[in-house]
């Protein structure tokens, strides 16, 4: 008994679970699947074998990305070990066949080694660790908290030896918990963009023409909204400065190619390689129900393609609307850790000209090409008060297109979750917004104003609209398609 206890005390501290035998390996893989219970705890440990979610270049969360903290890892490690402990007990294993007996003996080995009397103590320890893991998961699930924590630590780097903490949020005011206060104060400030890509990073010495205060770049169009969001047109920005300011940003581009829409991928990806965020790190996230039909397009340096399998829906309206659900789920699970900015676009499009760092902002929307000149009463908002996407006739700034929006991952997550919840509530009430996810997007962007607005240069349809003179460039255009054929 004493010897058994001594052996427990000398037990190595919790660490990654190492498979002890073949049967153990099989159980190990099972445990990998089980660890996906809590959406917020998608750890890179244990390294998922062949699941297609690991980086080929091994970038391990550089910069201000969300990393699972040590407590979570330890907690889950121990909780998984305890699950394994369960499996090792005789009551749970299948009756040993003569062939498997030898293997079983190996499996039974560890337990008999530890001694029977040590198990209650060990199980108690494991229970405590499981609770630890659970609670740290719970707290890390508060959205936005992590990002703030990250940005604080980066600020702290500058203040070594000076001030203790320089909070970016006014946590001296009132007793409101950090997460809730963050929600209100991040209305539309630059808070949520990762610190090293916020608008005040250092730019190297550069030579470029000087802007003239008395000679505006564009006089024929609105270049700034009343809430100070720039409207991005050609002639309004200097691409060299912006590329330098955002040089450390990683951008994710999400696109959905469901059912027959996979045919659009080839042109989309090839033109993206020529025009989208050149010189930056880019990850294409292709969501499809036909992974084998995704074309192999040669990618430039620092760019990669990730294919993610999702289910399809029979109605094209549902395919469109469920995108919000998928984006919010994957943002939480992956994108927060892998990229700084997310750009969510339609797939039946092609890039024709530069789409670069000028679009990056905490939250941006694009003007729908059909409504840039329309009065707000003519916008095709959802007008029925019963729907969650309802906008009254005397409200509205612009009509934003559902096919091009984005921002920092935290803001896109917020947007997608809000839209998804609104659509679910509508579905429960038996109502569907007139333009589906686009209606909900418009409602969201009315009350949480975007920090940048992209002009119709960034979303145009040549075949449906005559090109006006103020549109100096067409950057992202619709590919002609037969609606009836492709949707059914």
């Amino acid at each position: 008994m004493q010897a058994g206890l001594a052996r427990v005390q000398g037990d190595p501290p919790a660490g990654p679970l190492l498979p002890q035998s073949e049967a153990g390996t099989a159980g190990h893989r099972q445990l990998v699947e089980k660890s996906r219970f809590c959406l917020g705890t998608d750890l890179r440990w244990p390294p998922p074998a062949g699941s297609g979610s690991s980086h080929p270049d091994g970038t391990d969360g550089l910069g201000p990305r969300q990393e699972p903290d040590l407590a979570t890892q330890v907690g889950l490690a121990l909780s998984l070990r305890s699950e394994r402990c369960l499996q090792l007990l005789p009551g749970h294993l299948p009756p040993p066949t003569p062939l498997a007996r030898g293997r079983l003996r190996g499996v039974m080995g560890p337990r008999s080694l530890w001694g029977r009397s040590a198990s209650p103590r060990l199980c108690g320890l494991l229970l405590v660790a499981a609770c630890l893991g659970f609670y740290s998961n719970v707290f890390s699930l508060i959205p936005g908290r992590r990002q703030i924590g990250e940005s604080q630590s980066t600020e702290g780097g500058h203040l070594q030896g000076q001030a203790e903490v320089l909070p970016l949020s006014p946590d001296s005011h009132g007793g409101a918990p950090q997460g809730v206060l963050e929600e209100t104060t991040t209305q539309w400030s630059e808070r949520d963009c990762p610190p090293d890509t916020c608008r005040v990073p250092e730019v190297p010495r550069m030579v470029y023409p000087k802007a003239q205060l008395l000679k505006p770049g564009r006089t024929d169009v609105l270049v700034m909204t009343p809430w100070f969001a720039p409207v991005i047109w050609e002639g309004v920005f200097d691409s060299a400065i912006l590329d330098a300011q955002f040089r450390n940003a990683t951008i994710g581009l999400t696109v959905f190619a469901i059912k027959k829409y996979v045919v659009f991928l080839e042109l989309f990806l090839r033109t993206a390689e020529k025009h989208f965020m050149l010189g930056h790190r880019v990850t294409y996230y292709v969501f499809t129900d036909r992974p084998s039909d995704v074309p192999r397009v040669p990618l430039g340096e620092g760019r990669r393609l990730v294919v993610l399998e999702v289910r399809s829906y029979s109605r094209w309206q549902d395919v469109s609307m469920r995108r919000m659900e998928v984006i919010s789920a994957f943002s939480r699970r992956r994108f927060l850790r892998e990229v700084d900015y997310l750009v969510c676009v339609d797939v039946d499009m092609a890039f024709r000209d530069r789409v670069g760092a000028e679009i990056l902002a905490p939250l941006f929307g694009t003007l729908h090409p059909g409504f840039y000149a329309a009065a707000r009463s003519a916008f095709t908002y959802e007008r029925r008060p019963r729907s969650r996407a309802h906008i009254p006739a005397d409200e509205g700034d612009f009509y934003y297109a559902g096919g091009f929006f984005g921002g920092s991952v935290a803001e896109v997550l917020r947007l997608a979750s809000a839209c998804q919840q609104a659509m679910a509530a509508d579905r429960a009430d038996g109502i569907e917004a007139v333009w589906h996810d686009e209606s909900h997007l418009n409602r969201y962007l009315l009350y949480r104003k975007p920090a940048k607005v992209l002009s119709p240069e960034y979303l145009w349809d040549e075949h449906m609209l005559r090109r006006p003179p103020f549109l100096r460039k067409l950057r992202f255009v619709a590919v002609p398609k037969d609606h009836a054929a492709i949707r059914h």
Partner: protein
Amino acid sequence: MLCPAMRCHRLALGLGFCLLSGTALCLLCNMELRYKGEKPFQPVTQSLYPQPKLLEQRPTELLTLTPWLAPIVSEGTFSPELLQRIYEPLNLTIGLTVFAVGKYTRFVEHFLESAERFFMRGHRVHYYVFTNEPAAIPRVPLGPGRRLSVLLIQRHSRWEEISTRRMETISRHIAERAHREVDYIFCLDVDMVFRNPWGPETLGDLVAAIHPGYYAVPRQQFPYERRHTSTAFVADDEGDFYYGGAVFGGRVAKVYEFTRGCHMAILADKANGIMAAWQEESHLNRRFISYKPSKVLSPEYLWDDRKPQPPSLKLIRFSTLDKDTSWLRS
């Protein structure tokens, strides 16, 4: 006595149950917290304001966006009601630092009175007056939610010294105190007066104001420090705007970084026995080239009353007081 195998069995079952319930709770809390943490539709503004017109003539002749997409704030580019309604619920506190050393204490009264009329009305404001003579600072009646703190600093013999010490004082003050008390901070010159509303349109991460004397001249004529030996050196082909040292601000964290950076550069120059042409304004300009401001204020926000007001500037909000500079600095 229970058979050891059975006891372990029970323990194992108990542990398994705990884990299962823990996981279920985790899932539930996941959904709960997600819902609480995100407030989907907070109609912050049910405001009724005119729809922005994409294709109409702009109401200002000034440039409204810098090449790095920072807004240039001037009258007509923003809607004060919309901004007020967006910023009010955020309950921000804005700090305002001024230096009133030696004879400059005579400006404090007028400055504070005009600030009470025009600076960030409807928001919480905290004035920080740095002086070597606290007794000389008059008690100006303040509105609700507005406070005044008088802070003692050392007086230096030369006025240039006083001027260059501001960066150090501001950064130290933010680190020790202001970061706890305010969200945004503005650092203004005291020998000026507010003439028209200065509101939340000026809030941004890092805010600079264009100097009224140089907004219409090419960059080669900007009075940058041109000696290579100074850390504030700017080459002929560099520079966006010439910013005034009398107005800058932003979020406390960003202003801290900025002032600290300037202070370090000033120290380096001091070690080399050189003082920049326009003291801290030169260093401020150097830093604003590398760390571009996220918002720029037009000369409406920093005007010199001795100059005739051009038609392109519609509303002067903050300008100089006529004064005898040589006497003041003696």
